């Protein structure tokens, strides 16, 4: 009996020693793959450019180029009244520089032609008899022609014109009541106060979007192409006849893009803070957790793409096929709430959506774990599922 126990104990110890040896062997192999990947990445100038310089360049370019704060919209003033009143309204309308007067616009016909040619984005038509109607206290109509091909810009012009003529009508009414010695009616004024981005600037809104887009582009495509490259070169087979388990190999291949992705976040964030005044209001731990979980998702998607691609070219194209809709359905550009209900459903499985919400919440609003836990949870869940499916597919393919 005692002899049997001893034998079992000895067998157990032997199993543990074997498992320990195996674990050490895997750690050594993992370190070798990571070292090799880092070495290859550092030596490949194109990849280095894609991973380090391109994100920085794109951050700067996108930060300056993408600006929803429209100013100096080229506008024609078609003054058909040619009176002191019409000239005064034209001058006041352009005073805040939202609209910038363009030469031309002698008539509605020429103004329409100039809108078509792109010389102007809007035309304000002050009708004949405007002064006469205003003095006679009769209603008057000012026509605003808009180039609707750019809806955002058109909306800016429309609201600037509506705001100006609304305020003018209110002033005229007040003057009329004052002349009649009637006290003006009480006014309910809205006092907008923008929280988290008081200046309503575009850069703090866009910078998290830029970070989200750059990370998904660089990490997904680099991961997807990395494995396809090994397959194309024949090195993958050579590695697969060594004792390294496929899972350890995949882990090793994912580690450098993960580290580079974290570095990219730091780089882009630094540029955002320094150049565009993006605030970092929330706890950095939430930012770090969100970034790591998001990278697990993007790297998993990269692996999944490489599991269905045979060549680097296929991986690259498949990467873009995923990235474009993922960005469009994330809320980076347009709010998710503005999408049709069926498309909103799709956004629930889109990791890009959750990361942009985590970034904007954390950086701009100062949100912590308590506010963002379910988004972080969703990112984690999507990441684990994608990574599991990708590794299973690759393991099967490698085996």
């Amino acid at each position, binding site marked *: 009996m005692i002899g049997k126990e001893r034998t079992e104990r000895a067998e157990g110890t032997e199993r543990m020693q074997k498992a320990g040896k195996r674990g*050490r*062997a895997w750690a*050594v*192999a993992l*370190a*070798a*793959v990571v*070292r*090799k990947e880092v*070495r*290859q990445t550092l*030596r*490949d100038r194109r990849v280095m450019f894609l991973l380090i310089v391109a994100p920085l360049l794109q951050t700067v370019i996108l930060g300056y180029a993408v600006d929803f704060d429209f100013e100096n919209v080229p506008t024609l003033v078609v003054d058909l009244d040619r009176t002191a009143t019409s000239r005064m309204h034209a001058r006041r309308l352009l005073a805040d520089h939202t609209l910038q007067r363009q030469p031309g616009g002698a008539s509605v016909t020429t103004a329409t032609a100039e809108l078509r040619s792109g010389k102007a984005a809007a035309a304000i038509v002050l009708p004949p008899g405007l002064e006469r109607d205003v003095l006679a206290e009769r209603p008057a109509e000012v026509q605003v022609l808009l180039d609707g091909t750019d809806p955002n810009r058109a909306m800016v012009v429309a609201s600037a014109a509506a705001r100006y003529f609304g305020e003018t009508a209110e002033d005229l009414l007040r003057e009329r009541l004052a002349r009649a010695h009637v006290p003006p009616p009480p006014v309910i004024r809205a006092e907008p106060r923008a929280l988290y981005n008081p200046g309503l600037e575009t850069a703090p809104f866009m910078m998290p979007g830029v970070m989200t887009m750059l990370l998904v582009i660089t990490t997904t495509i680099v991961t997807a192409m990395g494995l396809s490259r090994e397959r194309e*070169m*024949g*090195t993958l*087979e*050579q*590695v*697969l*006849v*060594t*004792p*390294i*388990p496929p899972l350890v190999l995949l882990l090793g291949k994912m580690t450098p893009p993960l580290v580079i992705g974290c570095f990219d976040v730091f780089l882009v964030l630094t540029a955002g803070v320094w150049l565009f005044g993006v605030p970092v209001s929330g706890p950095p731990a939430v930012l770090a957790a969100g970034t790591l979980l998001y990278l697990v998702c993007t790297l998993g998607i990269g692996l999944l793409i490489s599991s269905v691609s045979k060549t680097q070219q296929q991986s690259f194209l498949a990467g873009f096929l995923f990235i474009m809709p993922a960005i469009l359905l994330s809320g980076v550009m347009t709010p998710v709430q503005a999408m049709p209900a069926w498309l909103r459903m799709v956004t629930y499985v889109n990791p890009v959506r959750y990361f942009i919400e985590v970034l904007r919440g954390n950086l701009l609003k100062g949100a912590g774990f308590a506010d963002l836990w379910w988004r972080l949870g969703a990112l984690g869940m999507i990441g684990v599922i994608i990574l599991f499916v990708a590794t299973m597919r690759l393991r099967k393919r490698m*085996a």
Partner: protein
Amino acid sequence: MNAIEAQELTRDFGATRALDGLSFAVPRGQLFGLVGADGAGKTTAIRALAGLIALDGGRALVAGRDVASGGSLVRESLGLVPQQSSLYPDLSVAENLRFFARLFCLPKQDFRERSARLLGITRLEPFAGRRADALSGGMYKKLALACALLHRPEVLLLDEPTVGVDPVSRRELWALLHEFVAEGMTVLLSTPYMDEAERCHRVALVHEGRLLLEGEPGALLDDFARSPACRQTAPSFETLFLARLEQADRERERGDA
């Protein structure tokens, strides 16, 4: 005791049967040659023995273990030099060696000794710092061989190792293989060159995924010289194999009719 056993290996790629019940055995310490024309199934057989492709039928055993279920134990006992490139072109000779040594978890001291010896016998020592993509065809093959031998495998599989290699490097490669076999290693290689068959201890002619002929080169030639199919006084392997291939084609045509 056999180091390699191919038992009725069968593998289809779509409608094409690449291996059609291929069977052979290689005793320990022998140099075994798989000879055949392009598309005969040599590469598929080697890939099946290395565990790189699953079989539709049959069993492959390496060092006494089933390749399909042997896992890392099988991989630790074999070295593979594939037909095409298998090394990292942007890593140097030394870096490639170090990488593969780490995958086999070779202790540092072992690696230093082993790589020094392999670099010495392959004459790659002066090129240790050179990138793999800057090596000549022959040097590249020698490096692939060195990487496959780092962990002292019991069995070495080489898929057409002399294709694209100049005659001098080819002679050196064969000398190295004989050296390894003399040390007790089992080597299985495939070659499309009939003259290389003579250099093996045993040779197998493969055609359309089937074994047509197997034996010691000398005995095969003697048998052929005595057979009515031989019309030459000094038959070569080329005539022997061509005669056997023609016979196989005739037999198949008769079977089809």
